[in-house]
């Protein structure tokens, strides 16, 4: 597509994007909720979106599916008050709906498998009912214009305008960064065009390309995005990305995951932890010097290597005898049945 057409498409999308924005008041309400059982909080929404990311990755769904699923989820949550226990069902419905829109039918994971892998407690019919509810509430607008739409457009624009072939922005990296941002509910308040432009600028600054910076400014002017708004979101994006890229690992919350193994494996897991019955016999430094008892046998040929330790090691330092013996005499005193 040539540059002119791209810019035109950009404009069209920009005008329509507002239709797919989740209600800001709804999002703010979620952000301000403290964690309790009756309302969704930002933390539980974010955790759920991370789960969706894992599932997307696991099933080989595209970034488009993920971004769309998050969009549907946020729009729904911003308008409906639901209980946290239903969040799994809602999020999985959004994922499935998004996959139906984006993915090829042969690549769609069946709902029962979705539920099983997602370790959810509801049934397939629950899921399809929820899908209908979500679709209805969102006025059946399943194909949304998202930050990814803009990201793709921006990327294409940079390709057509870029004079220097060497400097290319890595679209996959941008997509990954977008996913990281979407895991925080605050970014759902941003206009997709602005969020995408912030990401673009971050990356341009990272590769330090003057040309592309020029292109980004051109886009900003074309869409008439205010400096202040762009700056605000750029800062937040920068913060988020520095966390994402940090080498520090976050401790995985694996306690949430169920580890189901077959019965046989489970049986064998615990047989090793048995406590031995025989008490410890401490080794003493005098062990090796009972030569009067055993020397005749020790010198038979071919077997010296295994027991020829008389000498150097026998004088080595070892734990003080009284320290070890005290502990072990207690064991020996116990009268054990044979």
């Amino acid at each position, binding site marked *: 597509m040539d540059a002119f057409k791209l810019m035109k498409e950009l404009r069209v999308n920009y005008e329509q994007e507002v239709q797919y924005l989740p209600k800001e008041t709804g999002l703010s309400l979620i952000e301000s909720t403290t964690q309790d059982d009756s309302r969704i909080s930002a933390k539980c929404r974010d955790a759920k979106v991370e789960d969706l990311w*894992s599932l997307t*990755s*696991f099933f*080989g769904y595209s970034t488009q599916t993920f971004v769309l699923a998050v969009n549907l989820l946020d729009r729904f949550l911003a308008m409906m008050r639901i209980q946290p226990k239903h969040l799994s069902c809602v999020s999985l419905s959004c994922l499935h709906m998004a996959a139906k829109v984006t993915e090829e039918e042969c690549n769609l994971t069946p709902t029962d498998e979705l539920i*099983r*892998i997602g*370790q959810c407690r509801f049934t397939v019919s629950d899921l399809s009912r929820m899908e209908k509810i979500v679709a209805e509430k969102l006025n059946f607008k399943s194909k949304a214009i998202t930050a990814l739409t803009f990201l793709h457009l921006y990327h294409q624009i940079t390709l057509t305008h870029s004079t220097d072939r060497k400097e290319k922005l890595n679209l*996959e990296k941008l997509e*990954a960064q977008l996913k*990281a941002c979407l895991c925080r509910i605050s970014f759902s308040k941003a206009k997709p065009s602005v969020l995408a432009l912030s990401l673009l600028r971050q990356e341009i600054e990272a590769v330090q390309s003057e040309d592309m910076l020029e292109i980004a400014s051109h886009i900003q002017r074309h869409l008439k995005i205010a400096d202040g708004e762009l700056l605000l979101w750029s800062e937040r994006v920068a913060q988020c990305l520095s966390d994402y*890229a940090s*080498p520090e*690992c*976050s*401790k*995985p919350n*694996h306690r949430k*995951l*169920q*580890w*189901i*193994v*077959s019965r*046989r*494996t489970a049986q*064998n*897991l615990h*047989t*090793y932890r*048995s406590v*031995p*019955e*025989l008490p*410890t*016999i*401490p*080794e*003493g430094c005098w*062990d*090796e010097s*009972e030569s*009067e*008892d*055993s020397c005749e*046998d*020790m010198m038979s040929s071919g*077997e010296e*290597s*295994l*027991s020829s330790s008389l000498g*150097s*090691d026998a004088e*080595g*330092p*070892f*734990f003080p005898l009284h320290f*070890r013996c005290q502990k*072990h005499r207690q064991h020996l005193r116990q*009268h054990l049945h*044979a």
Partner: protein
Amino acid sequence: MEESHSAAFKPAIIEGSILLDAPSTEQQELFTQKLQQCCMLFDFFDSVIDLKSKEIKRATLNELVDYVSTNRGVLVESTYPEITNMICTNIFRTLPPSENPDFDPEEDEPTLEASWPHMHLVYEFLLRFLENPDFQPSIAKRYIDQKFVLQLLELFDSEDPRERDFLKTILHRIYGKFLGLRAFIRKQINNIFLRFIYETEHFNGVAELLEILGSIINGFALPLKAEHKQFLMKVLIPLHTAKGLALFHAQLAYCVVQFLEKDPTLTEPVIRGLLKFWPKTCSQKEVMFLGEIEEILDVIEPTQFKKIQEPLFKQISKCVANPHFQVAERALYFWNNEYILSLIEENIDKILPIMFGSLYRISKEHWNPTIVALVYNVLKTLMEMNCTLFDELTSSYKADRQREKKKEQERDELWKKLDELRLSDTTLVQNNSHGLLSVQNNNNNNNNSNNNNNNDNQDKSIDSAAAVTTDDKEPDVSVAASESTPCAK
């Protein structure tokens, strides 16, 4: 002492004279007499013969057991030879060959010792004797000597697990009390194990001996003597190759872990040893090995972990992809262990690339749904540890898969083209067989290259196909080949 004929057993001598009731001046004499009488052996294979005598001996043995357990001052020096003599007479014997020549310890019922009603009391007596507070090793060592120990060790091959259980405890006490016999005992156990591993593959008492060794290893002084380290590497590690590993693996693993707790620097050679002997065809053994690895990892020091993480996780990555679901499960379950997770976290940059390919592949391909669910858990855990690295690996994995698919398509297309060519040029066979033969040869070259070589060679063979077949008579082939050549790059 010779065996007397059972009919000569005169119960009348002892009847009524209970040891404990006798006046103390006579107890000594009575004790000796009863010991001597118990040297008479009876035939238990015949269940009806000598019933009364057998009962009397049994009662006598019981008395002796009580006498030695409850009284002080009964072990005077003169009793030692009588005691050991009675014991030797009763227990030291050539073990009968197994009734079942194909005895499989895991499947079949063992043949039990027929004379157990007497024998267990003799063993009990020996144990109480050793544990008596008045027991003097300095006196006893004249009678409990190397010959005694050697015979005792031979009995460990008994099929009767009750007998082996007694022997285990008895040998343990002997090792504890007779410092002069320790080196000898260790050496003999060495020999038994080596014979077992390399010669006979048969010995019933491996588990019991290992249990004793566990308590000995636990008590090793630091630094470890070279002898002990050699024992670990030359005997315990090769012991893992035995066919009947299941019978003694728990005890063996315990010994290995004890060694590592004593001297962590042994970790690297131990793990490399286990990897060297990793089972290739026996899944049951593989599951055991994985269990042992987990136990070792439970106690491993982080610095030692770094040394073996790469070869170890390469093996684990193969295990998770194993079609035998128990092996895959056991390997995946490592990710449920908090300490192992923390080790992985610290070294995620080395470990994730090794594991990633297998995990991703089996998430799509494994037949077992439980495994697929576990793989999800593992991938999710790894993803949370390091998103960026995970994403990088995902995209490079996908890119690799794309490239592979593309190459596959190109190969298919080339074959198709060549096939079409053959069909259309059947007339040419009569005219010019030489030309087609060269195409056939290139087919074969392509075939071999596809199977054996990497991409580079394949490119070369396509090039050579293009080169050879630029023949006037085969314009189609050369066009096809030259079209495909740039794509292959």
